[in-house]
C-alpha cells in the first residue's frame, strides 16, 4: 500500500518537473550552505590541531606531583612525589607507551663557547626513554650517551657574554669542537668546566624544549651529587615532572584520567585539545545556524509549493477520495511528495557541496604558497594537505537527513489540509 502511494507520489512529482526543480533548488542552496559552513569548521579544526604541534604532542601528558587521593590513611594529605615508584605505577597503566622522567640540574650551569655562555634549562632524561620525548634532530644525531647532550633549536642563538654591559645574544655553532659545560660547586664555591659533546640540535617547534639542553639522567644525578657534595639515596630522588606518552591519541584522555585518579596532576596538549573541541562545537552551532536560515527559507518555499499544488490539484484530491482514498492516503501522498522534494534538494545540495569542496581546496593548493600557506590564514594549510573544507561522512548523512526533515516539516501543514478536504468540496472546485 505504502509502496503504491509512493509510486503515485513519484509520478505526481515527475509530471510537475519544472516546479520540482525550482523548489528543490531552494533546499539545494540551504543544504549546500549548511554543509560548506560546517565543513569549513571541520577543516579549520583539523588545521588547528595540526598547528598545535606534531601528532606527537597529542599523545603527550605531563605529570606533576599531587596529593594522595586517600586522606583517611593519614591525617595530613600525603604529598605524592614523582619518584621511581611513581614512574613504575604510571608505566603499569593501560595505554601508556612510555614514561620519561625529567630531572633538572640543581646548581648554576651553563654551556661555554670561548667567552660566550648559554644559561638555560638543563634537564636529565634516561637515554633509553629519550626517543619517547617525541623530538627529532635537525642536525647531528639523536644520541644521549655519557658526556653527550642534545640541545633545543634556539640554544645556539642565545649565547651571551656575561661580562658585557648589555647581554647581546650571539650565534654559536653548538656542534663545533671545544664546547665546555661550566658547573658551580657549592662545596668548592667555584665553577668547574666539563667536556661535553653536543650530538644533535633538535628541530624547531619542539614547544617548551626549544631552549632546553638534554643530558643523560645519570650525568645529571652525578652533577647534582658533585655540586652538593651529598650522595643521594635513589629512593629520595624527585623528578621535576614526568612526560607520559600514550599509545594513541584516542587513549590520551583515558590515560590522563587514570593518572589523576592515582593522585597526580596532569597537563598537556591533549587537555587543551578538549577546549579547542568545545570552541569548534560553538563555532559549528553558529555557522550551522546561519546555514540553517537558508534551509528555513527553503522550507517556506517547499511549503508554498505544496500549498499551490494542493490548490491546483483540489479536484484530483476529490477524485482520489471518490475512488476510495482515505484521508491518510491523501496525507501520505503529499507527505511523500514533500519529503522527496527535500531528499532530492538535499542530495543535489550535497553534490554541490562536494563540487565546491574540491574547487575551493583545489584553488588553495594552486595559490602561491608563503611560508605558512595562503597568507590570509593564521596557520599552515599544507600540514593538512591544503584541505580547508572537510566533509566527514557523518556531515553528509546529517545534511541529507536534515533536508528530508525540512521537506517533511514544510509539507506537513499542506498535507493535513489536503487530507481534510471534504470530497464534494474538492470535486466541485473549478
Amino acid at each position, binding site marked *: 500500500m505504502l509502496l503504491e502511494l509512493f509510486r503515485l507520489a513519484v509520478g505526481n512529482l515527475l509530471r510537475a518537473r519544472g516546479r520540482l526543480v525550482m523548489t528543490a533548488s531552494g533546499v539545494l542552496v540551504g543544504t549546500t550552505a549548511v554543509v560548506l559552513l560546517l565543513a569549513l569548521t571541520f577543516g579549520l579544526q583539523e588545521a588547528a590541531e595540526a598547528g598545535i604541534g606534531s601528532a606527537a604532542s597529542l599523545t603527550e601528558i605531563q605529570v606533576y606531583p599531587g596529593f594522595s587521593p586517600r586522606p583517611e590513611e593519614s591525617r595530613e594529605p600525603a604529598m605524592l612525589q614523582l619518584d621511581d615508584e611513581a614512574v613504575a605505577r604510571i608505566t603499569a597503566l593501560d595505554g601508556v607507551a612510555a614514561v620519561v622522567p625529567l630531572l633538572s640540574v640543581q646548581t648554576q650551569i651553563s654551556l661555554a663557547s670561548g667567552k660566550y655562555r648559554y644559561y638555560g634549562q638543563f634537564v636529565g632524561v634516561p637515554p633509553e626513554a629519550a626517543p619517547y620525548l617525541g623530538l627529532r634532530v635537525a642536525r647531528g644525531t639523536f644520541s644521549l650517551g655519557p658526556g653527550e647532550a642534545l640541545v633545543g633549536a634556539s640554544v645556539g642563538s642565545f649565547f651571551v657574554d656575561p661580562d658585557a654591559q648589555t647581554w647581546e645574544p650571539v650565534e654559536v655553532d653548538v656542534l663545533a669542537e671545544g664546547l665546555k659545560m661550566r658547573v658551580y660547586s657549592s662545596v668548592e664555591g667555584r665553577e668547574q668546566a666539563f667536556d661535553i659533546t653536543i650530538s644533535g640540535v633538535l628541530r624547531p617547534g619542539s614547544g617548551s624544549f626549544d631552549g632546553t639542553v638534554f643530558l643523560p639522567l645519570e650525568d645529571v644525578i652525578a652533577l647534582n651529587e658533585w655540586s652538593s657534595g651529598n650522595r643521594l639515596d635513589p629512593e629520595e630522588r624527585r623528578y621535576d615532572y614526568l612526560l607520559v606518552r600514550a599509545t594513541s591519541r584516542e587513549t590520551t584522555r583515558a590515560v590522563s584520567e587514570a593518572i589523576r585518579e592515582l593522585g597526580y596532576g596532569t597537563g598537556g596538549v591533549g587537555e587543551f585539545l578538549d577546549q579547542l573541541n568545545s570552541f569548534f562545537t560553538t563555532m559549528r552551532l553558529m555557522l550551522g545556524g546561519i546555514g540553517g536560515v537558508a534551509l528555513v527559507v527553503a522550507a517556506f518555499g517547499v511549503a508554498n509549493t505544496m500549498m499551490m499544488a494542493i490548490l491546483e490539484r483540489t479536484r484530483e484530491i476529490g477524485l482520489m477520495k471518490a475512488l476510495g482514498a482515505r484521508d491518510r*492516503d491523501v496525507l501520505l501522498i503529499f507527505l511523500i511528495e514533500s519529503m522527496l522534494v527535500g531528499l532530492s534538494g538535499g542530495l543535489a545540495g550535497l553534490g554541490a557541496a562536494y563540487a565546491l569542496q574540491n574547487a575551493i581546496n583545489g584553488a588553495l593548493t594552486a595559490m602561491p604558497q608563503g611560508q605558512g600557506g595562503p597568507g590570509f590564514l593564521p596557520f599552515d594549510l599544507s600540514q593538512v594537505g591544503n584541505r580547508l573544507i572537510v566533509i566527514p561522512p557523518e556531515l553528509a548523512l546529517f545534511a541529507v537527513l536534515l533536508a528530508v526533515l525540512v521537506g517533511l516539516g514544510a509539507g506537513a501543514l499542506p498535507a493535513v489540509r489536503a487530507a481534510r478536504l471534504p470530497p464534494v468540496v474538492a*470535486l466541485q472546485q473549478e
Partner: protein
Amino acid sequence: MAEQEAARPIIIACRNVQKTFYLGERAVPAIKRVSLMIRAGEFVGIMGPSGSGKSTLLHLLGGLDRATGGTIRVAGRRLEDLSSDELARFRRETIGFVFQTFYLVPSMSALDNVALPGVFAGLPRDAREERAWRLLRAMGLTHRADHRPGQLSGGQQQRVAIARALFNDPPIVLADEPTGALDSRTGRRVMGLLRHLCDRWGKTILVVTHDPVVAGHADRILSLQDGYLIGDHAPETAEESDA
C-alpha cells in the same frame, strides 16, 4: 416482469433525507425530506431543473457527502453511522462514480487512469494493470491504453472513466450527467454502454440527466424540484412521496 423485479433486494433506501448547506448565516436547503428505494439492478434516471438537487442527492447516496437529516442505507450500510475511513472504504467497494467532465488525471495514460482506484485498494501493480487492461478491452479501448486523456475524444474519455468506475467491481454506478459534455450521438453510445452494464453486468445504475432522450434508457425516472422528490414511477415509493 413486475414479480421478477420485486424479487430483487433493495440496495438503496432513503428516508426523510435532508441536506442543508450553510453559507455563513444563510441556510440553503438542497434536499428536502426525500425518501426513496432502489432495487439492485435497476437503471434509474434522475431528472429536474438546474439547482433542484440532483447532484447533491447523488453525492449523498455515494457517500461523498453527509446528509443533515434522515437515514440512507446503501448495500446494507447506514451511511450516517460510518466514520470517514469507513465511508472511504464504502466508496471504494460499493460505488463507481462517473462525472460529466470525466475527471481523468491528464498526465496519466488511459490504463493508469483506469487502474487508479486499485492504488487505494492496495492492489499490487501487476494485478492493477491486468484488471485495467481487461476493463479497457470491455470498453473497446485497448488500442488507446497508452494515450493520455488529452489525446482521446470525449466519448473515449468517458469510456475510460466508466472503466475506472468499474475497477473495484462495485454493485452501484452513479453517473452525474455522463453525456452532458458529449454530442448526442456519442451520448447515446455512452448510455447504451451503461444500459449494457445494467443488463449484462447486473449493476445498479443511477444517471442524472437533463436530456429526455437520454432518460429514455432508464427503467424509472425520479423527478426532483426545489429539493423535493416530486415524481417517481416506482410504485413502492410513490405512496411515501404522496404522503
